[in-house]
């Protein structure tokens, strides 16, 4: 089985989807000739021509707006926001239009689009290249929201997202594009070629939207997380000798409630991790879900470890990032409670 980085897996997913369905078109800023600033669409224009993969002017609202129109015509557009931080001009098109088109027209028109966006920090990107805006999408009726953590899932989920009949927001934590970042920024990153989730099958396969993955089975406590922090949680657990069960949610809407309940019912303890700011973050939704469904299994309060409620700082990036030390301390506190 070939080994791929997450960038290569995403590129391969595009290839497979475009090969299998000529309605799939890919566009965005620097996406065509250059192949994207993170190289996720490299080679698509060469292979499929500039009617299937092309550059767009720097106007996110135009990109998503045009994608909605193309989808209404019958195409399957998969567009890239160069950074999740740049999606705000497109937010109205995503929230007021793509998300609601099926409902408001009673199925007369639909918007099967995918909006990909590199998210998260850890690359010294400062406040405009580091954000994790997933909660701004999970709060919206009619959107599916995916956050990927590894090459295998990224390929299977992206193909599933493109084939899905509804709009899908596809967040790609850029810190794990090239390896399973463990949160220790001062150490070399293990490449995906040395990680089992870097083994990516050739050809078509899907990872269904709405299914979580048990990243690490364990019995001491449950970690609910997604994206980069899946790997940070694993590091923290190993460093502290905690037998954590780490659930990689993968899809936030629809949420795999069964996987959450099954795990917390088993461990009785739960921590919730994400890189996005704490207040009104998706962790609040997870925490409420566990409280509503697993209260009588809980032996300790649910704890959240998240980004602070500040803009993502440039020089103080590693003070902001919920790294293995903060996560490890939280694990010990929850076990001691």
């Amino acid at each position: 089985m070939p080994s791929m980085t997450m960038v290569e897996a995403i590129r391969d997913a595009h290839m497979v989807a475009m090969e299998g369905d000529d309605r799939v078109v890919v566009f965005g800023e620097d996406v065509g000739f250059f192949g994207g600033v993170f190289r996720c669409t490299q080679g698509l224009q060469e292979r499929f021509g500039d009617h299937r993969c092309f550059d767009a002017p720097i106007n996110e609202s135009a990109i998503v707006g045009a994608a909605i129109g193309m989808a209404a015509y019958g195409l399957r557009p998969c567009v890239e926001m160069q950074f999740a931080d740049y999606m705000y001009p497109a937010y109205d098109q995503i929230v007021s239009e793509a998300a609601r088109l099926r409902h408001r027209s009673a199925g007369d028109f639909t918007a099967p689009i995918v909006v990909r966006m590199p998210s998260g920090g850890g690359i010294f990107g400062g406040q405009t290249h580091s954000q994790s805006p997933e909660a701004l999408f999970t709060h919206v009726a009619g959107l599916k929201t995916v956050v990927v953590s590894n090459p295998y899932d990224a390929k299977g989920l992206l193909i599933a997202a493109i084939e899905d009949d509804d709009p899908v927001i596809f967040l790609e934590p850029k810190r794990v594009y090239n390896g399973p970042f463990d949160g220790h920024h001062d150490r070399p990153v293990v490449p995906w070629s040395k990680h089992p989730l870097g083994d990516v099958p050739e050809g078509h396969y899907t990872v269904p939207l709405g299914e979580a993955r048990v990243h690490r089975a364990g019995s001491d406590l449950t970690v609910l997380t997604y994206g980069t922090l899946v790997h940070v949680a694993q590091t923290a657990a190993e460093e502290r000798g905690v037998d954590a069960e780490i659930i990689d949610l993968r899809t936030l809407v629809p949420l795999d409630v069964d996987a959450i309940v099954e795990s917390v019912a088993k461990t009785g303890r739960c921590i919730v991790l994400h890189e996005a700011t704490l207040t009104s973050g998706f962790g609040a939704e997870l925490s409420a879900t566990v409280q509503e469904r697993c209260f009588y299994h809980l032996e300790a309060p649910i704890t959240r470890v998240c980004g602070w409620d500040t803009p993502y700082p440039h020089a103080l990036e590693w003070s902001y990032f919920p790294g293995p030390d903060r996560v490890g301390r939280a694990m010990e506190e929850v076990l001691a409670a």
Partner: protein
Amino acid sequence: MKKPELDEKVERVALMRKQLVRVLDDDGQAVGEWVPDLSVDDKIAGLRDMMTVRTFDARMLRAHRQGKISFYMQALGEEAIACGQQRALRPGDMHFPTYRQQGLLIAAGYPIVQMMNQILSNEEDPLKGRQLPVLYSAKSHGFFSISGNLATQYPQAVGWAMASAMRGDTAIASAWIGEGASAENDFHAALVMASTYQAPVILNIVNNHWAISTPEDFARGASATFADRGYGFSIPAIRVDGNDYLATYAASQWAAERARANLGPTLLEWITLRRGAHSTSDDPSVYRPDHESEQFPLADPIDRLRQHLTALGAWDDDRHESLQREITAEIETALAEADSHGSVKSGAVPGPATMFDDVFAELPRHLREQRGQVGE
């Protein structure tokens, strides 16, 4: 006014953004290069379309005053633009309208009773009571779902047109916006996309001079016209008398032929006047000058086409009154039928469980649970 060749260089039509295309003169004669090739029957059909829109609007406003419906928006004085353009385009083309293009549906032969069912939000509402009155959707009649947000449909229309071109199709898209909403970012987003990809799209700006309470210059700024907006994008832009049915048909046909000949987008600024209130929630007496309508120089679109047909010897008062009676009866019959299906006021609306349908193609778990909680 000269009518340019379809492939005329944009610099050579540039002055038309400051001028005004008209066909009907003050005596009701069709004059000049823009006279469209329409038979008397076509013109009578256009008159009928416009009279139907006006009669429909008047009846719906009365239904609002009677407490039957929650909200309405009329197109009084602007009927020619949507009616004329619809007849100039083809089945298979797609309009991305605003809330004041009911003429597109009526001229396309969409069932009036369906429009009323939507307005009443009743059990037969094709949109299942989910949208404010008049925010129709009718893919079968080339009418994209109206949002209620302003300007969002403009880049969508460009995308639809791009998709048609990418697939080798000859269908074109038509984007609609009011002059006030042309200040929105999405208007400019659409123009840059249309210009960059030379999309087969008509970009309509209906300049009815009022954005609720603010006059047109708040959106126009220091430009002389809204058609000026096209110039910076090298999109041929033409100002047209929007109260002249023959001009609306001719200019729309010109733009449509350009698009279908792969010559790219055309921007059309339609000059008209919003004679009524913005909506039933508006009181224009607070902000509008008295007698504005009477002093508006482009007169009334129905009166002008009627005058033209009369001058041709093809129309008279008896025929006009007879047609009016026929339309009124048609609308009363439709309303009686729509009324029989209930309304949002009577409570005969789709069941609560239906609000969970169509959020997604398939009902996910959390919505299944919530539907179970709301009951039937």
